[in-house]
């Protein structure tokens, strides 16, 4: 019985969330109803695109006015039959690579893409050399007979 109560609560919360969400994206809902295929592509695409005004939000989640305008622009590009790449190129030509959450791999972005791996490789090289040097330093020394006798005496207690 108790478990059922939790389910009801969860369902209520989910309902609430749907309601809140619907309220926030109100103006978009009309466009959504008009052409669900275009909207679905817009949602996927705009998650890959950065909102310029609030830089850590994607174009999909941002409520900034510019994001609204850019979504409208992307929507009309999709309607014109442009491919995802063409839409991205359109925005990059205006706002730079910065709009892409996953910038293209090209000489300018090599450091960004490969830098961490180069650093890791360097770290591994240093680690290897350090371990080697350490092994040489703490070379196990053979026990002399005298040491052995002393150890035996201690062990006997």
């Amino acid at each position, binding site marked *: 019985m108790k478990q059922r109560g939790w389910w009801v609560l969860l369902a209520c919360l989910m309902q609430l969330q749907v309601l809140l969400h619907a309220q926030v994206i109100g103006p978009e809902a009309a466009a959504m109803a008009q052409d669900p295929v275009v909207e679905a592509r817009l949602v996927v695409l705009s998650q890959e695109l950065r909102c310029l005004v609030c830089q850590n939000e994607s174009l999909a989640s941002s409520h900034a*006015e510019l994001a609204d305008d850019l979504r409208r622009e992307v929507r009309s590009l999709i309607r014109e039959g442009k491919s995802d790449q063409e839409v991205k190129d359109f925005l990059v030509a205006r706002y*730079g690579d910065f709009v892409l959450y996953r910038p293209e791999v090209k000489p300018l972005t090599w450091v960004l893409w490969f830098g961490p791996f180069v650093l890791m490789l360097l770290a591994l090289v240093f680690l290897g050399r350090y371990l080697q040097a350490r092994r040489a330093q703490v070379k196990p020394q053979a026990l002399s007979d005298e040491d052995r006798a002393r150890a035996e005496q201690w062990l006997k207690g």
Partner: protein
Amino acid sequence: MKKFLIPLALFLGLVIFLAIGLNRNPREIPSPLINKPAPAFSLHTLEGDAMFSPADMRGRVWIFNVWATWCVACREEHPVLVAFANKHAVPIVGLSYKEIQPQDEAAKLGPDAKLQVARERSWVWLKRHGNPYINSVMDLDGRVGIDYGVYGVPETYVIDKEGVIRFKHVGAVTPALLAEKILPLIDTLDKS
């Protein structure tokens, strides 16, 4: 070689990188439009029925300034532009960017009435704060703004005689920026 100096050197290196990183302005995004032809458009001007297009400025080095009456930073920038326009002969064209915001009552009006309201507001504002522009154009829906990669008003561009964008600045223009960067650039562009 003193071993303890190694971590110290690494730490100092880190400090230098952090200092550079923290002193950079994350809002300043390098524009891909530099050295590219200024996107063409044809827009209504503030007064009269004539349309304006960047091609009209061929053969002149000019400044393109994006502003709006609702933009707070523009208020700070405006006297600087007015003083500049009084002192120098460089033509400045203003772009009134999305004068009517979506939450505005006037947003419900038809396109012609909207243009009228936007013109009136811009006109009153320029009358009060001074008009540094030789011409002002009305970008009501922000489409031209998108073509120019506008993401924060005010923005300022320097466009050369061939219609190529040579410089872009996001945010309010300061007297220092004008004197140290924009004027020397315009001088060299004028001579070429």
